[in-house]
């Protein structure tokens, strides 16, 4: 079962990278945009057909390694089989 994990900075936590990209975009003439946010997307295939279990495993991975839960939040989505 394929799972997509999105990791984002918690609200209020400074994101220098997003700031720099915002500035670069506007100096390239993209002045019609606001509020750039950066996150990570991680996709994993988990060896199960049970959605609950896949979610549970993904959450475990986030807590153990993928997300820095002090400054980041994560969300887990189950991908439709394509």
């Amino acid at each position: 079962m394929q799972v997509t994990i999105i990791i984002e900075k918690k609200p209020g936590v400074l994101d220098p990278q997003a700031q720099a990209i915002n500035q670069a975009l506007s100096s390239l003439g993209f002045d019609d945009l606001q509020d750039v946010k950066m996150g990570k997307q991680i996709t994993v295939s988990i060896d199960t057909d049970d959605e609950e279990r896949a979610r549970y495993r993904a959450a475990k991975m986030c807590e153990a390694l993928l997300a820095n839960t002090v400054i980041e939040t994560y969300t887990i989505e189950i991908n439709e089989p394509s």
Partner: protein
Amino acid sequence: MRVAIIVFPGSNCDRDMMVAVEALTGRRPALIWHKQSYLDPVDLAIIPGGFSFGDYLRCGALAAHAPVMNALHDHAARGGAILGVCNGFQILLESGLLPGFLAQNKTLKFVCKQTNLSVEGNAICELTKSLDINERLHIPVAHNEGNYFADAETLDSLESNGQVVLRYAKDETGVSDNPNGSANDIAGICAANGRILGMMPHPERAMGAGHKSADGKKLLQSIFEAIIT
């Protein structure tokens, strides 16, 4: 000899490079601010190491779009000589002046150490042609993204065209000193016309006189010799 050093807000080896160039040529190179959109004619343009724009997004990505880069492309199109060191190499790749890309080191850690380099025998690089190919160069690296990668086709053509200029050398036991996992132990490559050199090691930190080696001086010297003649 007219040398220009391109300076981005996060460049941090610009002064070091300036000192090195001045020591060798007796003439202070021009420092060109990234917001400047033109480049007076120069014999060599150098993009020094550092973190041009914090290395946010991808190393060198934001710098590749700075106003000064148009002028640098024109310089390159005229066959002008360019040296990119470390972040400068990354910028040359991001701006398409050299092929391939630099992934994060395989250790996922920044690495700062002395390395052993071999100068490639078949290199077509005009800028380094006076270097002795049997000699090992000791020049330090300091980077987080120096893991050179290109698809198989590109790698093949780099190799067969002699565009690989510097490699992390193998020791007696055949083990390479490769600090970052780069493909084919590549430490530096040049453009097909032999006039643009990108390299991870920092020659300006191996200038003798207090540095652990003077081999960077040798390398820069070879570039200046090539340009004069």
